[in-house]
């Protein structure tokens, strides 16, 4: 097997990767020929080759188990191993979603407890576990907002305000719900500009959605004023809970004036990110929005659990009840913590980020020089002035065996390096990263070529995105190769 082989290259007629039982019933007549397919051009691969092929591929990947992964706003914390084991119990994986409620009481109990747990942590009244990803939860929240206003006969409110530092999913989710977006500016401290909000907050605005702390890693001290202004003008305050890790055990979204918040269990509650999912994006809401939540919720009566539909639900947003096995892992995490553990997480996450900030601010421009929360956003503009881009810095970090931060986001910071260490990293790991970043800053001054040509120690080097776009090659074709 060669390095760049693909499945068709290791396929040979007659091979197979598993065994199947023989037919134990008398065969029936096959369907009419015009319904049948003539050819099934799929690879034929032996089990051993299959395992070696994918094992080789896995070694080209970098995960949290490989090392430091400070991808800002993604909360790449360590994923405890025993969670994987309990999520794979046959009593959880072997459940059909349409089994009778009587036969899935344990699963519903777990979901109900997780609903209650997340509502308490966020200071909300109810939780829907149905959304399967953060953006899916955002969409659910916005549909609830829309339904809430329509239910009150307030049909003018078709606009969603968001900030110029918001995640790209925020405006995209608004568009999915047929709503217009307005962008509220940030002030010189990186907080929301109240005057800008004041001028935009009219009777067409359904809600303001805020990430708290913001994608700049900053907590806006004016949150109460913001909430009051929005509510006084008839709007709702929605939360993007991507950065909940900073607030665990420290503050509740409900207390801060949010009407709903969407969480990311694959971030805050340590379920693995899977190379881009599965996630879980529950939405927690205050009483005023509970009736509109997506269906179904799990309800409890005297120790019996059942699925119910909220009175004025926005409807169904996924086929079944959400990503159940992700919920199992998140609940395993939740139950390991207690209140003290919850606080320790946010404290260490915030401590780690501030430590990076202090140690590196001399070397990299810090656009907002104030206490940060769980992440810190640097700008590579000093280096850029010397012809070294943030992309060069990121690629050079790969040579050190470190994953780079999120780059070029948030959009309001030029050459942004959005760095989220998380609480699961030790001081030694942070010091290693700091040393690498200092060397890179020095190389940017003295030896920029090493940055322009990075990475050199990775399975492949910089890839030609423009060619991928121009000469689209999105698949192999099996035809002719199996003969």
């Amino acid at each position, binding site marked *: 097997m060669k390095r760049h082989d693909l499945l068709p290259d290791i396929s040979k007629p007659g*091979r197979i990767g598993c065994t199947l039982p023989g037919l134990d019933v008398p065969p029936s007549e096959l369907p009419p020929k015009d319904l049948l397919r003539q050819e099934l051009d799929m690879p034929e691969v032996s089990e051993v080759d299959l395992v070696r092929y994918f094992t080789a591929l896995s070694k080209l990947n970098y995960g949290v188990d*490989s090392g430091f992964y400070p991808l800002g706003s993604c909360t790449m914390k360590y994923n405890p191993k025993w969670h994987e084991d309990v999520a794979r119990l046959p009593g959880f994986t072997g459940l059909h979603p349409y089994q009778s409620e009587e036969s899935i009481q*344990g699963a519903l109990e777990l979901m109900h407890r997780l609903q209650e747990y997340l509502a308490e942590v966020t200071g909300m009244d109810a939780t829907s576990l149905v959304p399967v990803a953060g953006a899916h939860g955002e*969409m659910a929240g916005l549909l609830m907002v829309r339904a809430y206003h329509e239910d009150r006969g307030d049909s003018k409110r078709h606009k969603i305000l968001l900030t110029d530092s918001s995640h790209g999913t925020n405006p995209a989710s608004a568009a*999915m719900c047929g709503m217009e977006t307005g962008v509220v500016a940030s002030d010189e401290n990186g907080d929301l500009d109240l005057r800008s909000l004041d001028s935009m907050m009219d009777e067409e605005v359904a809600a303001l959605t805020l990430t708290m702390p913001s994608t700049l890693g900053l907590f806006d001290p004016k*949150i109460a004023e913001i909430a009051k202004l929005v509510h006084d003008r008839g709007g709702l305050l929605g939360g993007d809970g991507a950065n909940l890790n900073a607030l665990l055990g420290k*503050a509740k979204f409900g207390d801060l004036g949010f009407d709903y918040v969407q969480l990311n269990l694959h971030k805050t509650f340590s379920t693995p990110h899977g190379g881009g*999912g599965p996630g879980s994006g529950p939405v927690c809401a205050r009483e005023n929005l509970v009736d509109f939540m997506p269906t179904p919720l799990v309800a409890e009566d005297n120790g019996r659990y059942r699925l119910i539909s909220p009175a004025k639900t926005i409807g169904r947003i996924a086929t079944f009840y959400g990503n*159940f096995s992700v919920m199992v892992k998140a609940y395993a995490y939740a139950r390991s913590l207690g209140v003290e553990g919850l606080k320790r997480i946010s*404290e260490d996450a915030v401590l780690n980020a501030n430590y990076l900030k202090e140690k590196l601010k001399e070397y990299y421009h810090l656009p907002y020089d104030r206490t940060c929360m769980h992440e810190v956003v640097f700008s590579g503009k000093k280096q850029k002035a010397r012809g070294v881009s943030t992309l060069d810095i990121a690629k050079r970090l790969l040579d050190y065996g470190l994953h780079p931060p999120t780059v070029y986001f948030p959009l309001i910071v030029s050459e942004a390096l959005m760095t989220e260490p998380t609480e699961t990293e030790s001081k030694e790991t942070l010091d290693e990263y700091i040393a690498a970043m200092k060397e890179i800053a020095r190389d940017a001054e003295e030896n920029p070529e090493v940055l322009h040509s990075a990475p050199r120690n990775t399975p492949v080097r910089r890839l030609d995105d423009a060619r991928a776009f121009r000469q689209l090659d999105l698949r192999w074709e099996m035809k002719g190769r199996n003969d």
Partner: protein
Amino acid sequence: MPLPYLPNTEADRKAMLRDIGVDSVDELFRDIPEEFRNPEFSLPPALSELELKKEFGRMADSNASLDGYYACFLGAGSYRHFIPSVIDHIIGRSEFYTAYTPYQAEVSQGTLQSVYEYQSLISELTGMEVSNAGMYDGSTSTAEAALMACAITNRNKVAVVPGVNPTYREVLDTYCRGRSLPLVTVESDSGDLPADCACLIVQQPNFFGHFEPLESYVQKAHDAGTLVIAIVDPISLGMYKPPGEYGVDIVVGEGQPLGIPMSLGGPYLGLFACRKEYVRRMPGRIIGKTVDVDGNPGYVMTLVTREQYIRRERATSNICTSESLMALAAAVYLAALGKTGLRQVAELCYHKAHYAAAAIEKLKGYSLAFPQPFFKEFAVRCPIPPSRINEALLEDKIVGGLDISHMVDNAMLLCVTEVNTKQEIDSLVKRLGEF
């Protein structure tokens, strides 16, 4: 109890606070107004791994797991198929499952190349030109396909035929209401389509398990400038003509049957494939092959200008985190079964389902609800309400079919797969005969 996931010691914390220049960690939270800081929490106390494994074991054991001693004849969108162990061992490699979206392609070739394999396998299976990297599940794929069709045709009406899974129809309704798109039902046997539909959504085989006249739908729709979206069962494509050969424009479906456990409904995988001419309107991630600066082959996320993190409110969808690990599972499944295994699984389902249907049809008081050819699911009219039958079956550790008596009088929708043995089917038939 100290947490094993928090490596900093008290000494580390003190040293770091000193370097930051604050006395206590509380000072780092001072931007949170005092009135909101450190509220009371009412949460269960922390427990150890040992205690929690017992607790989770208790909750798992109190469910009737269909991986165990139960015979299962439920389908309707979630299916019990055989899952070779090789899949879990591959997706259980932490290099795959602890990585995130492959933003840094140089250290993500494992994920990227796997998705390229997935896209290729799904394209081959469906007979379509291109596939994306996967969506949330079958119903959201369907809804996103409808939105995509509206963008392509510049029309806003979405048509479905009655045979579409009612749950998918509900999800479609939620998504369409969001965008204020009218959703209309087109009767199967009526003549023409309304003139201004963006798309016609057909399920093949349909919710009741049988085959729709897809060829004539495609003809009618294309005559009206309407795109055709086909919802497919990927297992059926091991033996049936793929939608690509019918001229379908977008193919969606539930990827769960491809090596993913039922897990009470998630995580699943939304299949999404289409004609190449529409690829720039596709939602979700797409991986392309290219070369690096040394000319070596490599893979990257491509056509990213469709995506929310570049295009924001003008993106083709809001999807970001999807079901990448499930797409890997599906790719391994398709490769493990391969050309012969996929056909064998499909044929096992076919023959066992038809064996069961033929036996049930002979029972007094039972009849097949539809005369059309079917694959692995079929609707049966029962002599008494199916809910009562199912209750009794459960006592014998048999999970009966889905009660669809609100759609067809006293009917249940049964599903038979390669996992069901002759003995299980015979027991089911015997018990049904006793009502």
